[in-house]
């Protein structure tokens, strides 16, 4: 599987029991409620959830921009929560550790008073690099993100996508092993989003960079993530590699990633959701089914895509006759290694899916 070549089993970001409680005017709001996150080296890991689910708190806790109320954060083998010290200010060790974690932001957060090159040099200034080294590295990184000709421009002269490229170049200046992406594409139009995601994917492959991104857009997870986690009310309710999630019966995340809709034409019909992942996706199973059992298969809807380089997807088909009449064809599909969910006519679409449809 070439797509996964950069992923190893070494954990790079681990949080355990991560809890964050905000107190304001006597009220307590639990933003994170015992989050256990495991991001492996070299993967692109997406945390998805609606606003207020705690995604932002989670990513800010990873480099301790937010101090967790309880729990630990380990990045590249270093327990950051232990480095933090007691006071509200970041200790020297924590700051050193942060300089090895890149971060990109939704609103880019570039200094308007500095040129593009000077923005990229900023982390290197903090690291105390010499002027010559800084400009060499900055120009190299600007070349990497495709903005070599904009070194002397000011951020105000750039488009949103270009600003985010500068943000990414800046995040890479300290040669980080880990890149945190806080809704990096949420302020961009769809086309620019795709090019930024492609850049993140390329960097992940080329540099073996581990990327933890948070987003509220399913498409982001779908197009770049190897693994994903779904957050609701400060908890991770589902997590795993995208292919594993798809193989999990009743996975809300899989349903949301591959939404299939369509209702039975009548009461005497059986509606079945077929999930493809891995090998089975390449077999012409539906036509085999039709030929072997001489049934008329109607396709009600399908969502097939390439996730992390693998063909995966779901298809909703309709078979004539009630469920009792279709036990044998359904058994055939199961034998082909497909995951089959019989759809109850009255079943409601999962909450996440409904939210997406708005």
């Amino acid at each position, binding site marked *: 599987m070439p797509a996964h070549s950069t992923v190893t089993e070494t954990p790079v970001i681990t949080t355990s029991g991560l809890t964050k409680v905000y107190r304001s005017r006597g009220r307590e709001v639990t933003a994170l409620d015992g989050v256990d996150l495991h991001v492996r080296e070299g993967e692109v890991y997406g945390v998805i959830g609606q606003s207020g689910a705690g995604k932002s708190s989670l990513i800010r806790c990873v480099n301790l921009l937010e101090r967790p109320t309880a729990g630990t954060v380990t990045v590249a083998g270093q327990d950051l929560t232990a480095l933090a010290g007691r006071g509200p200010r970041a200790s020297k060790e924590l700051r050193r550790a942060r*300089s090895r974690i890149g971060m990109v932001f939704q609103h880019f957060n570039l*200094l308007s008073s500095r040129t593009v090159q000077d923005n990229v040099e900023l*982390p290197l200034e903090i690291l105390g690099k010499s002027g010559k080294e800084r400009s060499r590295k900055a120009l190299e990184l600007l070349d990497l993100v495709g903005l070599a000709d904009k070194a002397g421009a000011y951020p105000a002269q750039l488009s949103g996508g270009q600003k985010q490229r500068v943000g990414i170049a800046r995040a890479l200046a300290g040669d980080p092993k880990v890149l945190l992406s806080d809704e990096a594409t949420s302020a961009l139009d769809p086309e620019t989003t795709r090019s930024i995601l492609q850049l993140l994917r390329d960097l992940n492959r080329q540099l073996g960079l581990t990327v933890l991104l948070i987003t509220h857009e399913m498409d982001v997870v779908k197009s770049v993530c190897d693994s994903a986690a779904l957050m609701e009310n400060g908890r991770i309710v589902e997590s795993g590699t995208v292919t594993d999630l798809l193989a999990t019966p009743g996975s809300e995340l899989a349903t949301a990633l591959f939404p299939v809709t369509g209702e039975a034409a009548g009461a005497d019909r059986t509606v079945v959701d077929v999930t493809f992942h891995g090998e089975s996706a390449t077999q012409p199973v539906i036509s085999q089914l039709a030929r072997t059992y001489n049934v008329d298969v109607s396709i009600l809807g399908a969502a097939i895509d390439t996730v992390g380089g693998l063909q995966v997807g779901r298809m909703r088909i309709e078979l004539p006759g009630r469920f009792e009449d279709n036990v044998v064809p359904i058994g055939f599909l199961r034998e082909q290694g497909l995951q089959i969910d019989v759809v109850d006519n009255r079943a409601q679409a999962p909450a996440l899916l409904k939210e997406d449809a708005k």
Partner: protein
Amino acid sequence: MTWSEMQPLLSQECWNTLYMVGWSTLIAIVGGLPLGLLLVLTDREGLLQNVVANKVIGQVVNVVRSMPFIILMVALMSFTRWITGTTLGREAAIVPLAIGAIPFFARLVETAVREVDGGLVEAVQSMGGNTWTIVRKVLVPESLPSLISSATTTVVALIGYSAMAGTVGAGGLGDLAIRYGYLRFESEMMWIIVAILAVVISAIQFAGDYAARSLHSRGGRSGPAPRLRLLKPAAAPGETG
């Protein structure tokens, strides 16, 4: 009074005014900038959050600012004598002028620095920058256009204060206007001084605005000047530069 009589007086006192205002502005900036930054940094949710320090600094600033300048000058006389050895003359006037202007400038600095986007602070924190780095690389450079406008306002206010300082023997254009224009009914003298002050203040305001605007156009669309310019339909975002 003929021009040849007035001219040496005017140039002498004009110089005295600029001397007083120049030094007190310098001291106000050196003292007010850190004070204004501290007001922001020690505030709730600030990088150096310290509610007690914030309250104390805020209160001191308020007390000094609430005093009419002429009262402040009198109240500070013994302090002035301790510093300069006298309460008369331009050197002595610099003390109350600077002390009056420090909290004035500090409040303006506070407002300017609060305008800096918190995301920029977060970005530098995520790079491993400490508070001093954030002050030097983010808060001051990013608010520089506003800080220059604030300094301009402070200079103009100080020119006004310096006229009051004239009444207690500091010299300067204000003193001249009072002594000749008011006490001796030499109204030409007074109008010439008014004209000189108008020209000086306009020149300072113009220079300050120009400096702030040229920094802005570099930084682009953020900040007050371009926002006001949006009111004019002809101004396209790309025209700055």
